[in-house]
């Protein structure tokens, strides 16, 4: 019960709830069409009519941020899921096999960990082409290494538990033991870790689309919205600051929830 009363967690959950609405049904929150100009008012500062102001084409920035949530967040979720699943699989095989297989797999993982995640993502995007999906794959691959390490450590811990030994003496087959006993008992930390990784993935996805590897204009996307405002940073700073703040708040909210998930298990 105490977890619900924690103000940080409560606020985080609230932010994420609003974000979720933006992802599922953006028209509910956005007052204007994200693609059409709302009149002749170009580069207007924030007001009650236009919460985040308007951009160079007189489009409502708030509406564009709301509509951008879907692409940005789906890419981040896809990245985290892909990284967690792939990493867990690698960790499971490596930890269960042991010996030479483990050694070889872990050296590959070491190499993956040695390359900065964002660089790895850049390589992937460069070879797969621009777009949200390739960004997601790139960012996911960047996170795979740490997931694999955590999973392997868990598998090695669980493998030595007495109930695994008991399962062997029952005459169960090895794959059965791995899937029914080792995997479920080893994956708890992966779930906790995935929630923290999600926050990092949102940042990484935004960074890559800021650099121009993501969705192409006029599709709204958080990183590219920040990037769009760059040329007007001296005259209309809200164009970058507002979407940037949204990224910050959402990342913090995801983190806030993740921390509470981790702390309570």
């Amino acid at each position, binding site marked *: 019960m105490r977890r619900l009363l924690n103000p940080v967690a409560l606020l985080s959950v609230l932010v994420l709830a609003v974000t979720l609405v933006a992802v599922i049904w953006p028209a509910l929150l956005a007052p204007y069409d994200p693609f059409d100009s709302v009149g002749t008012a170009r580069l207007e500062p924030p007001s009650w009519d236009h919460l985040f102001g308007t951009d160079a084409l007189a489009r409502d920035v708030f509406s564009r941020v709301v509509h951008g949530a879907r692409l940005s967040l789906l890419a981040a979720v896809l990245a985290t899921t892909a990284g967690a699943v792939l990493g867990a699989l690698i960790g499971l095989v490596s930890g269960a096999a042991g010996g030479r297989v483990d050694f070889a797999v872990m050296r590959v993982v070491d190499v993956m960990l040695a390359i900065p995640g964002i660089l790895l993502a850049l390589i992937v995007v460069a070879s797969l082409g621009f777009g949200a999906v390739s960004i997601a794959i790139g960012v996911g691959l960047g996170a795979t290494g740490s997931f694999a390490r955590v999973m392997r450590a868990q598998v090695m811990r669980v493998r030595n538990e007495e*109930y695994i030994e008991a399962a062997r003496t*029952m005459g169960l087959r090895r794959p059965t033991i791995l899937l029914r006993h080792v995997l479920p008992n080893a994956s708890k930390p992966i779930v906790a870790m995935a929630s923290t990784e999600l926050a990092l993935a949102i940042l990484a996805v935004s960074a890559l689309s800021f650099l121009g590897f993501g969705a192409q204009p006029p599709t709204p996307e958080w990183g590219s919205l920040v990037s769009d405002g760059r040329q007007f940073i001296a005259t209309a700073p809200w164009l970058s600051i507002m979407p940037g703040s949204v990224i910050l708040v959402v990342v913090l909210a995801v983190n806030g929830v993740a921390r509470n998930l981790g702390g309570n298990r």
Partner: protein
Amino acid sequence: MSDVPVLKVTDLHVTYGSGAARHHAVRGVDLELAAGRILAVVGESGSGKSTVANAVLGLLPDGARRTEGTVEVDGIELTALRERALRRLRGDVVGFVPQDPSRSLNPVLRIGEQIAEALRRHTGASRANAASRAIEILDEVGIPDPERRARQYPHELSGGLRQRVLIGIAWACTPQIVVADEPTSALDVTVQRHVLDRMESLRAAHGTAVLLITHDLAVAADRADDIVVMQQGIIVESGPAAEVLAAPQHEYTRALVAAAPGLHSARLRPRAEVTAVTADASGTPLLSARGLVKTYPGDGGSGAVHAVTGVDLEIRRRETFSIVGESGSGKSTTARMIARIIDADSGEIRFDGEELSAMEGERLRRFRRYIQVVFQNPVGSLDPRMSVEKLVTEPLRAGGTMSRRQRAATAAELLDQVRLGPEHLERRPAQLSGGQAQRVAIARALAVRPELLVLDEPVSALDVSVQEQVLQLLVDLQAEHGLTYLFISHDLAVVRQISDSIAVMSQGAIVERGPAAQVLEAPGTAYTRELISAIPGAAVTA
């Protein structure tokens, strides 16, 4: 003088947690302990006995609160003291011997330094004085070659020696009271006896009052002047040790006395309502092992560990064959080789005429149903994420799938065999008590109708009264299903209750074997005699 208590606990109440999760662990405990006396607080896990010990030390764990009552040590009311004064009191006036010697010493400090630290903090002794006094203390607690030991690290000492070091630290500043919380539960029986002897002689030499917390009524019987029996946070009986044991007033105490394995000696018989399968008279042994050897390669310079050095044994059908020995004797390794959990380096195991030791792969997997294992730690051997229903029927999956209804019916039937009701089917291991969990583990082992059950210390993690029930269950099931048991235990008192044949192991080899009565009544080796005489409770049976 001895009439003035050095420790006086009055109407002590302690609760854990708050709100709905609040648990009233100690409810109105009164204790008095005079100088030079030993007071044993006896109870099962959850009885609140350790919480009482913590309260006396002023060291209640997080989340625990003393809601009522007073603790007076040497006339000083503890609850009025601040943390600083409490810290001085601990060590100076109240010494403490913890339960687990392997975790209670700092692994990166030498033994001598750890004792010296306590001395310098409390007596203000100089570095040199403290160091030489530390060596004297090691000598006093009976550690051979104290100068050398003082320079060693905790991992270089055995559990028994470490516990003596901790006793030395507790007595270092000649406190008036020593609180010993299960000081020997983690030790082998023979070591247990030496450690307790040492405590008693220190008590005599310094006139210390000792508060001994133990689950083992037999230990209390041997060592204590007075006994207090706790159940669910309440003292149900107290008095001089001899009186409490000879004529227990409360029914709980009577049950404890009846259950304590050290206090009586008969082998358990199946209960009358159990219909025994008639024994078949075939003379061939069910299992035989020849020349089993297992060596673990040493890590680095420590050299290889010869865990088992050539064991032969024969287990006849429908008997209970027990292997007894202290930790490190190789008894568990032997059992694990027979259950094919680990592979023997050499030797042959034959089960019902077939060569079990040569089986591999699919053939071995299919053969496993004839030999099932029950492990020491009942909760640890059950997958924490599965329901009891899934747990007990899991071995049957190896044979093929079954429908949901079929599975539920089978599970209920299996639970019924181990005297558990169907209401347990949906529970998870964490929701079961130790005894219930072990029954579930036994039910699971029975699911595939094995012929041999390997029982590796199946009751040593359980409370005595539960121990007795599980042993009785095992005896009943053996008669009902015509099972053969290989029973591994360090506890001769338990072995006495269940065995037909006994093998005594020491340092990887069987040193004595024979029918249970013969080994126990007329032991042929000095080692077995020492094991038997170390069983606590002699004070009562004599």
